[in-house]
């Protein structure tokens, strides 16, 4: 994949992922793990986790890190630009007539269909990510996964704090307990 192709892929993804947050992760995963086979599932999870350790939107972090991993510093900059250009261009234009746009029936109908499609894609991605995270140390991983899901869905605790705690739990567990003793 050339630098330009990489830029275009992220640019397209950034143009179709609404809502921000983790929405972009399954879509990036689908493109780079399934379609182009440039990253494996585990690397994808690692890059996502790392993206959460810095401030700012996760979509921008993931695009930059995938770029860095595949193409070095120039890749990182292309990923960054490709992630922020679509929303930048669209908001700059819409700034002038956004009320008419947001209330247009046909636009809304298209967006409703789009969000249904994205939902199906995300469910598929979660299933595959879960399969990979549960490959080793099944009980330990399952407990962390379920606990994180419940805390994240039902409370408004800061995600950065959740991620920091997860890293700490992993570090402490694998430092003080021998690896073959962890279920």
């Amino acid at each position, binding site marked *: 994949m050339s630098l330009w192709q990489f830029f275009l892929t992220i640019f397209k993804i950034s143009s179709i992922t609404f809502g921000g947050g983790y929405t972009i992760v399954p879509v990036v995963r689908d493109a780079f793990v399934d379609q182009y086979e440039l990253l494996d599932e585990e690397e994808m999870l690692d890059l996502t986790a790392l993206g959460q350790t810095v401030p700012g939107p996760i979509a921008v972090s993931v695009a930059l890190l995938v770029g860095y991993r595949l193409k070095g510093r120039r890749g990182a900059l292309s990923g960054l630009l490709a992630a922020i250009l679509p929303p930048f261009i669209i908001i700059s234009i819409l700034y002038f007539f956004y009320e008419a746009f947001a209330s247009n029936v046909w636009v809304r109908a298209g967006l409703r269909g789009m969000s249904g499609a994205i939902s199906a894609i995300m469910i598929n991605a979660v299933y595959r990510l879960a399969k990979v995270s549960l490959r080793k140390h099944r009980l330990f991983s399952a407990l962390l*996964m379920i606990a994180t899901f419940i805390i994240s869905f039902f409370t408004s605790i800061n995600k950065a704090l959740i991620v920091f705690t997860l890293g700490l739990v992993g570090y402490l567990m694998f430092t003080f307990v021998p690896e073959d003793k962890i279920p």
Partner: protein
Amino acid sequence: MILWQLFVAFLYIGTFSYGGGYAILPLIEEVMVTNLGWLTFQEMTDILSLSQVTPGPIAINAATFIGMRVGGVPGAMIATTASVLPQSIALMILGHFLFQDRPILFMERALHGLRPGVTGLVASATLSVCLASLFFTLSPLVIDPFALVAFVTVFVLQHSKKLSIFKLVAIGASLGIVGEAVERLLIS
């Protein structure tokens, strides 16, 4: 002068907006509405609804919108750049150490906790997106038929054919528009 102020304000917001998504709103309210008075509370809510119908993170949308209002296109560029600058610098440093060939031991250990946890986070976001897109309201449960048809179609297509994500999303959008057309035909 005002562009410099804009730059500093978004540098501040970009540095402290941990957690993504709506986590940025209290910061924007503090800086833009309360301290600088560049935005009314109503306009902040407008940015939020605009973010829901346009792609991209709320943080970028907000920076571009406020930048446009305060300083036109140069303002939008400065605000957007400033808001991702702290993040980009931090990631470039992180990437420099990370993507060398030898693995970092403490990072390897931390990742044992992070991998399953991040899956849990993505699952939680997925459930939120599904609930928000498939239902008009949650109590009582009112299904959005267009979104549901697109959901089921894409779910099935994904398992039978290997279509790219762009095609799948385009199919979803077309189904929504066709649904709207059919609904109008039936009513008239």
